[in-house]
């Protein structure tokens, strides 16, 4: 029903066509590759590079926060006029937080996460030769790379990069004279973001059409692994939400460069009356958060999907409540479009609207709670194997709980009055979407590294990496809640110098050192990653004894993934430790006729013929069984 005849057709031509037409050169294999596995690796490596840059930026502003009155001459050597006399300047501090946020949210956790795993896993796990449109897929990567380069190039302009916060609210971002970063830096930010959205859309359309049209024989929607469900719904979110950001950005470009007043009204800048009339800064916030809120689910849903898969494989247990997991993902997808106003409770939006958004926001906590409980139930009575991927998946669940619970505070408009834009918010989103998503991503990297690079990563370094990062992240973000509860606003350059907040200085120093520790731990990962690509232990075909289709492909990469025909799928992806089965896993490609001893009536819910066979077999089997 859901398979396409096109496949077999393509297969017939595939092998010979491959031999004759494409000559594998360095350029078309590693650079302008249209193979989804190579594009996934390109996304991953670019994403990791951006993550390291984003992390370095955060360490720079952490130094400023911990030592607000100390000079570090080395910083001046490295950063020049951005850190005069060895102290980071207030303007550059703003640039740092802005670009850190932008890079992490968009370039690492959107493109780096979705881009990598959607490209790698969608064709491999649904049984397709490649993406629906490999060429568009390649373009998607190159737009992303261009966007990254432009974003980073803003460090080279005279006045520094954009500095109005990653949410770039106008009028601050619209008036080049309002702050240093609102000049050329902001222009580059906007150009970069338009390219980024183009990349994201090209990717998203590809992912959706591939999932809908190119599944192998037998792979109906309810047999897809949760990773695919998550990546598929993420792509839908992205395709529907990102264009709205472009609309917002384009209007902002008009306001900046062509004298329009979409977001501007009644402005007096430095005593000069400005000729803008009739616009509304709130309009931008609506447009921005209409993307911005789905965006946080674009970030977390792939991490949820990856963690579900990794938790199930390594607990040697089916994921608990597969249907509930899918429905909660769908619920989150739908609800995420109607909660954006909770970012705007105190911005001057009509208070009645605030009340409505509070209701929708707290509803979205229900599917999130269901997911958490289901993960816990998956671990219950499992037989847990602690691979580094498994540890990162457990860490993801832990962060998701810790950060998700504070969302109940912030989603409540009444409580948000005093918590809005404080460190409480910083702690909340760094745990629930920052740390949780990056842990999901790392779980994915450790888990599918053998599929990507045909070699294994070192477990012990993985363990070291996990524990340092996990403990470090909690030490960084947990105390921030209390700063927020003391009313410390975010994006403050030197708040510990003020009376009433000095008592946070020691905490700030502690957080900075914890951040350094987690930062250094990432070097263990970088070493492990690079070293294992070239010198890691050779991988087996199915190193984790997993059920999903990607482990049925040969270790050697083929253009087209499977030699010969694409395997047919007969069952769901989670038959782990099924009673009566020989092994503790039954790959999706094994038909029920080969596993008569482990079949359950439940397996034949939509299959009356199969059920009849099953009943016949059990009856016969019972008769022949010796009476005890």
């Amino acid at each position, binding site marked *: 029903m859901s398979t396409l005849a096109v496949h077999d057709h393509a297969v017939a031509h595939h092998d010979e066509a491959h031999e004759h037409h494409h000559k594998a050169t*360095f350029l078309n294999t590693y650079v302008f590759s249209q193979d989804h596995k190579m594009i996934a690796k390109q996304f991953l490596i670019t994403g990791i590079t951006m993550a390291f840059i984003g992390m370095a930026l955060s360490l720079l502003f952490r130094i400023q926060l911990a030592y607000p009155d100390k000079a570090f*001459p080395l910083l*001046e*050597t*490295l*950063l020049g*006029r951005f850190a005069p*006399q060895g102290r980071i300047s207030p303007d550059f501090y*703003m640039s740092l937080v802005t670009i850190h946020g932008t890079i992490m949210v968009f370039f690492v956790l959107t493109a780096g996460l979705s881009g990598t795993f959607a490209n790698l896993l969608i064709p491999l796990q649904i049984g397709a030769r490649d993406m629906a449109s490999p060429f568009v897929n390649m373009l998607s990567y190159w737009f992303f790379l261009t966007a990254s380069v432009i974003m980073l190039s803003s*460090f080279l302009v*005279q006045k520094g990069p954009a500095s*109005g916060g990653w949410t770039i*609210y106008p009028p*601050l971002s619209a008036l080049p004279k309002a702050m240093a970063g609102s000049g050329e830096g902001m222009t580059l930010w906007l150009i970069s973001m338009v390219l980024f959205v183009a990349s994201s859309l090209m990717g998203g359309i590809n992912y959706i059409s591939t999932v809908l049209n190119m599944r192998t024989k037998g792979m109906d929607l309810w047999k897809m692994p949760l990773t695919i469900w998550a990546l598929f719904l993420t792509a839908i979110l992205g395709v529907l939400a990102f264009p709205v950001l472009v609309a917002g950005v384009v209007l902002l470009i008009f306001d900046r460069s062509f004298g329009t007043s979409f977001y501007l*009204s*009644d*402005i*007096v*800048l430095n005593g000069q*009356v400005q*000729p803008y009339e009739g616009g509304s*800064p709130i309009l931008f916030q609506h447009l921005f958060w209409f993307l911005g809120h789905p965006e946080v689910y674009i970030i977390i849903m792939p991490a949820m999907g990856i963690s579900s898969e990794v938790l199930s494989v390594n607990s040697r*247990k089916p994921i*608990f409540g597969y249907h509930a997991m899918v429905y909660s993902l769908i619920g989150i997808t739908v609800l995420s479009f109607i909660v954006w106003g909770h970012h705007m409770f105190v*911005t*001057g939006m009509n208070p009645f609207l*605030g009340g409505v958004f*509070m209701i929708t926001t707290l509803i979205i*906590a229900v599917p999130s*709670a*269901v997911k958490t409980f289901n993960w*816990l*139930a998956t*671990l*219950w*009575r499992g037989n*847990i*194997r602690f691979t580094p991927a498994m540890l990162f998946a*457990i860490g993801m669940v*832990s962060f998701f709980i*810790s950060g998700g619970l504070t969302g*109940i*505070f912030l989603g*409540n408009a*009444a409580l948000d*009055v*005093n918590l*809005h*834009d*404080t460190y409480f918010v910083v702690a909340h989103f760094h745990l629930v979407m920052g740390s949780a998503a990056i842990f999901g991503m790392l779980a994915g990297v450790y888990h599918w590294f053998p599929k990507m690079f045909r070699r294994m990563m070192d477990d*012990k370094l993985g363990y070291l990496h996990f524990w340092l990062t996990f*403990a470090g992240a909690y030490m960084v973000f947990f105390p921030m809640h*209390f700063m927020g*509860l003391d*009313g410390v606003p975010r994006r403050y*350059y030197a708040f510990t110098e*003020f009376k009433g907040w000095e008592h*946070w200085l020691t905490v700030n120093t502690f957080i900075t050192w914890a951040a350094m520790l987690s930062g*250094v731990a990432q070097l263990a990962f970088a070493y492990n990653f690079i070293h294992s690509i070239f010198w890691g232990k050779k991988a087996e075909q199915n190193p984790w004894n997993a059920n999903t289709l990607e482990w049925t492909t040969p270790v050697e990469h083929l253009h087209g993934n499977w030699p010969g025909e694409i395997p047919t799928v007969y069952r769901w992806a989670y038959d782990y430790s099924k009673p009566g089965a020989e092994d*503790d896993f039954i790959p999706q490609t094994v038909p029920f006729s080969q596993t008569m001893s482990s079949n359950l009536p439940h397996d034949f819910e939509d299959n009356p013929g199969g059920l009849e066979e099953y009943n016949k077999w059990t009856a016969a089997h019972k008769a022949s069984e010796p009476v005890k």
Partner: protein
Amino acid sequence: MGFIKGLNLKKAITLFSMFILFGTNMLFAQGTDATPAKVDWLEVGYYVLMFIIACLGIAVIGKILKVYDLSLKMQGKKGIKWNNFMAFLCLIFLIVGLAAAYWSLTVQGSMTLPEAASKHGVDIDNMFLVTSLLTLTVFFITQILLFGFSFYYRKSEKRKAYYLPHNNTIEKVWTVIPAIVLTVLVVFGFFTWQEIENSTEVKGDLNVEITGHQFGWYLRYPGKDGKLGTVNYTLVNAQNSVGLDTKDPNSTDDLQADTLVFPVNKPVRLNIRAHDVIHSVYMPHFRLQQNAVPGLPTFFKFIPTITTAQMRVKTDNSKFEYLLYCNKICGGGHYNMQKVVRIVTEEEYLVWIAKQKPFLNIPAPAKPEVKAPEVKVAALNKDADKKVIANRLALNN
């Protein structure tokens, strides 16, 4: 491929280091006039050395473990049980983590804001307390289960995992319970929110205007008539910082102030404006926050309940002051926009307000200085009129 061959490792490293050394100087150091501070390279080298030693240490430990593992295997034993080790670390993390969370909640939790100093703030604090108790309970239970399960169900050859694909009853239970709890929170939150956000003006409210700009606040109190004069941003100039409309009779007695002083137990209605970019009026002690948006006047009405003097006793801090911060990123000086807020008794307030200076020296505004901007404004208005006419024409046609 040719260029790849030509570029061997040594050359690449040399080029890269040249880029780092010279490139950064050239790219980043443009326009620095001040002589850069001297870098203590010895100290930098010290930290680099520390890092290298730490890496070496880890590598050595890794090798030792590997040798130990091999020797165990040679003796016919199983080698290091990494899986069990990780499970125990989960348990240790759980115990240490719970202790640390408890410590953080009690020690750092007590470093937070004192009790709410406004009427609605008490409601918010109650709401916060209820939400905290609920979420902390869930937090501790789920984290204990997560790491407890991880430890308890660690891999064992003797056991097989329990095949449990789903259980509709329990799934329904843990969908419905959070739904009920959240509904309760939503209902209470909704009503609290409605109450807080009700800023409609009632007779007897003290209307005070606060206008954000880069980087500070203009404060304006009404005069004897109790009414604030209207403002128009096009009238802003060096003398008239908020653009007070002198033609409005209510404007004449308006007062300017440097500190926000409010009488205790009287409703205060903040009229919040911004000139250039978005700012945010944030007074955490009163659980009060509202953005200041250019072109969109906003309001926040509250009743302060504790005077500064009383709060000094309560916090045991003789220098305690309520403060107002800017809480929306607004430029390089964002962090430095505090205003002192002082809550006083009615009598003290009357004494204080009597000392405040008028906002403008009406009826004799410094004419020549005002005139120039006024011309500009007139020109602007003319333009606007023209625009309107043009639009009408367009509509009629």
